[in-house]
């Protein structure tokens, strides 16, 4: 299996480390790698964070948290599963959502468990994909999705419009916008699985794929 051939950064031989990616070198303690990480992925992290937080200084604090977590998790990076940018985005989105939920916390609610379940849980699949999730794969998968759904995803994720704004812009009921975007993203996931970029999962939540 592909996954068995993938080692965590700390197990890589020196020669491999010298030509390795930013995350691998970060895991091995290279000071310059963090600078490169900020240079390379700073805009990506900032963009994701700002979609959740309009407050600049709060967003800055979250970015700081995200960079720390990237450093902490860099040794778990598995290039067979995702590109570096996808790995970075995974952490950025998760930390942003965690922070958002904290700010919105309502004492009367039964809260969801904190999402500090290890990232490895969603990052290291039981079965390995044929190729990692990267920009090109996403682009191809988006091309397989129907026009209206693609438009909704683009307005939401790419343009950063809120559901309410999309609803007004397209004169579509708010609930419909929400549902279509969610289903569209599930469709995107299914396309990635079909193309071999994402492993098929087992378990109750993947029953749709198996039936």
């Amino acid at each position, binding site marked *: 299996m592909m996954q068995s051939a993938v080692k965590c950064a700390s197990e890589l031989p020196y020669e491999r480390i010298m030509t390795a990616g930013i995350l691998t070198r970060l895991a091995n303690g290279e000071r310059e790698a963090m600078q490169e990480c900020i240079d390379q992925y700073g805009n990506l992290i900032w963009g994701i964070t700002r979609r959740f937080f309009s407050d600049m200084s709060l967003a800055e604090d979250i*970015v700081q948290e995200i960079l720390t977590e990237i450093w902490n998790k860099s040794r778990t990076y598995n290039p067979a599963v995702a590109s570096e940018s996808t790995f970075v985005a995974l952490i950025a989105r998760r930390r942003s959502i965690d922070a958002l939920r904290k700010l919105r916390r309502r004492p009367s609610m039964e809260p*969801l468990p904190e999402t500090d379940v290890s990232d490895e849980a969603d990052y290291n699949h039981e079965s390995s994909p044929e190729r990692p999730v990267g920009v090109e794969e996403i682009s191809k998968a988006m091309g397989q999705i129907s026009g209206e759904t693609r438009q909704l995803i683009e307005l939401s994720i790419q343009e950063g419009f809120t559901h309410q704004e999309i609803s007004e812009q397209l004169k579509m009921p708010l609930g419909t916008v929400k549902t279509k975007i969610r289903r569209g993203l*599930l469709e995107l996931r299914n396309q*990635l699985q079909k193309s071999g970029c994402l492993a098929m999962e087992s378990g109750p939540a993947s029953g749709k794929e198996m039936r």
Partner: protein
Amino acid sequence: MNNPNNLDRLEELQVGFLLGDLSADEEIELVQLASKLGCQAYPDGSLPLTLAGLDASVHSAQSEDLPESIRERLAAGFPSQLSPLHILPRAENNLIEGPFGNQSNIRADGPRISWAQWGAWAAAAAILCFWLGSEFLGKYSVQNNLSFEDRVEMLERSAVDKVVAPMEGLGTYSSLAGNFIWSDSRQEGYLQLSGLPVNDPAQKQYQLWIVDPSRDEAPVDGGVFDIRSPGMNIIPIDAKLQVSRPKAFVITLEQPGGVVKSRQEIVVGIGSAPI
């Protein structure tokens, strides 16, 4: 057998979770449905990766740039040398017995201890250190819209030079329990205290002292505070002077408004830092 409609709905809600657009009702529905279907509410596996891939894809083409000022602060704040993560030692907060035997036997109004002794005890008390670099990430503004709880958590998560160690009550204050958390690089810290009696601010107030022998034998005033309700209280540490690798945090009970120099007539508790 699971109802396919339930599975579809679960995944929809999980996507909503990842988008951060779940309503309160939907969040409850997600927890209940996940429980009913015997799987975890928080989505793992392919869904987060799909979203992350999409994020990365979108932002490689179009993104709001990280402001240069923030980029510079982030870069400047990172330690000059990183340790490979797999060989980093882990912090341990185990304390050994203090200089006076069982600390719970010390009377709060008992013999006075020199500040140097507090520092020495604190130095001896720690077992291992976990310093990842004291300058990491520089000073960051504390968010006014965050609760103390959130600020503590943020400090715990993101300050790599954070020090966390238990606070112990002394003498009649032996019911005191909790922790302190401190970050040199941010000059920010908090006490998380429980079991400390509610005080009457008109009569007495608690005062925190920070023992930093590298600065001076005299401790730094860490601020005056009140305990207004039983249970857990989070107290921000208000260091009046810059401190570096403090050896201990000591709480005394003083006259209203606090004092410039404590006579240590009532020492309430202490927390010593790992070294």
